[in-house]
């Protein structure tokens, strides 16, 4: 320790400058690598927007199956996936359900169980949902079916994101 408190010894000075410069250089090397590595976390994923799935004239009060293609961009790999929605008219409202069961993610079918023609049925563990998507109590599902965002333009139904029913 120096006799004067304000004084920095030669050894301390060298220590600080060398550590400082060294740290700066190390940071310069590591910053790009770490930033590149964490890029998937920071990337803003743009959603695919609304996709046309069918004609509004085809809708009835009974849920009807609509298959549609979604383009999925997985980093450098682009692919088309087929997605399904069950859509029906509730007065002037249009409801589009995602067929993914809220129990363990199997695919549900409208009237999949011949004995229950007015319910969605999941064959994996006998899950049931009402027409409006609410899960039937005492069957495995623990939440109502998810719904698609729906938009209608010029008589065509467009579906957007899947949104869980609160």
């Amino acid at each position, binding site marked *: 320790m120096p006799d004067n408190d304000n004084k920095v010894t030669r050894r301390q000075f060298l220590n600080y400058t060398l550590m400082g410069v060294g740290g700066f250089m190390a940071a310069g090397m590591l910053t*790009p690598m770490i*930033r*590149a590595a964490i890029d998937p976390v*920071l990337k803003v994923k743009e959603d695919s927007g609304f996709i046309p799935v069918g004609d509004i004239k085809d809708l009835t009060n009974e849920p009807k199956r609509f298959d549609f293609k979604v383009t999925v961009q997985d980093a450098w790999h682009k692919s088309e996936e087929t997605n399904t929605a069950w859509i029906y008219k509730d007065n002037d409202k249009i409801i589009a359900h995602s067929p993914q069961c809220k129990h363990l993610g199997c695919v549900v079918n409208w009237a999949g169980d011949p004995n229950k023609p007015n319910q969605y049925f999941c064959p994996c563990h006998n899950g049931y949902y009402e027409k409006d998507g609410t899960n039937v109590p005492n069957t495995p599902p623990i939440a109502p079916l998810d719904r698609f965002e729906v938009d209608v333009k010029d008589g065509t139904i467009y579906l957007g994101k899947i949104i869980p029913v609160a």
Partner: protein
Amino acid sequence: MLKKLYDWIDERLEVTPMWRDIADHEVPEHVNPAHHFSAFVYCFGGLTFFIILIQFLSGMFLTLYYVPDIENAWKSVYYLQNEVAFGKIVRAMHHWGASLALVMMFLHMLRVYFQGAYKKPRELNWIIGVLLFIIMLAFGFTGYLLPWDMKAVMATKVGLQIAEQSPLIGGVLKTLLSGDPTIIGALTLTRFFAIHVFFLPAALIGLLVLHFYMIRKQGISGPL
């Protein structure tokens, strides 16, 4: 705080003598650029090692995005280059570092050669150095193919034809490298990737350990 943590570990494991043995030893005057500026030539070996460390690090990060497959290799590099933030820089570090490592290694070799530092008792270390030289060239050769663009494939084609000219074993050697007697394709890429990323680093680390151990054992060669 850090000091306390260090002391706590040191008290139990006695790390100080270990790192002192590795790092804390006197630099002879003739090797210290502060005394003789021309002594900077002694830095080239260390610089080579420093760049190799950067190559290891940047290479590890590159594998987060790269796939060694003929359909996707180029696309994954393109993605890394254009879509990943700072991906361009990480790849540039690896790209330029590769050339720089070879330059530094060559300068290091020139210093050892012209100072006669390879003479008795350091002949063995010179031999290890020659092996390291070959390993580094192999790194460059195998790494060059991985972006899988036309330049890479054409350069590899030439390299494989050179290998094919080896007496007696030429044909076998070429097939061993490229994975197919005629095609430069899927197997060539996976092989070059595996060699570049697993086999060569293992060999490099082993040889570097020997290289450094011998320096510590024999000391730096005396002044001219």
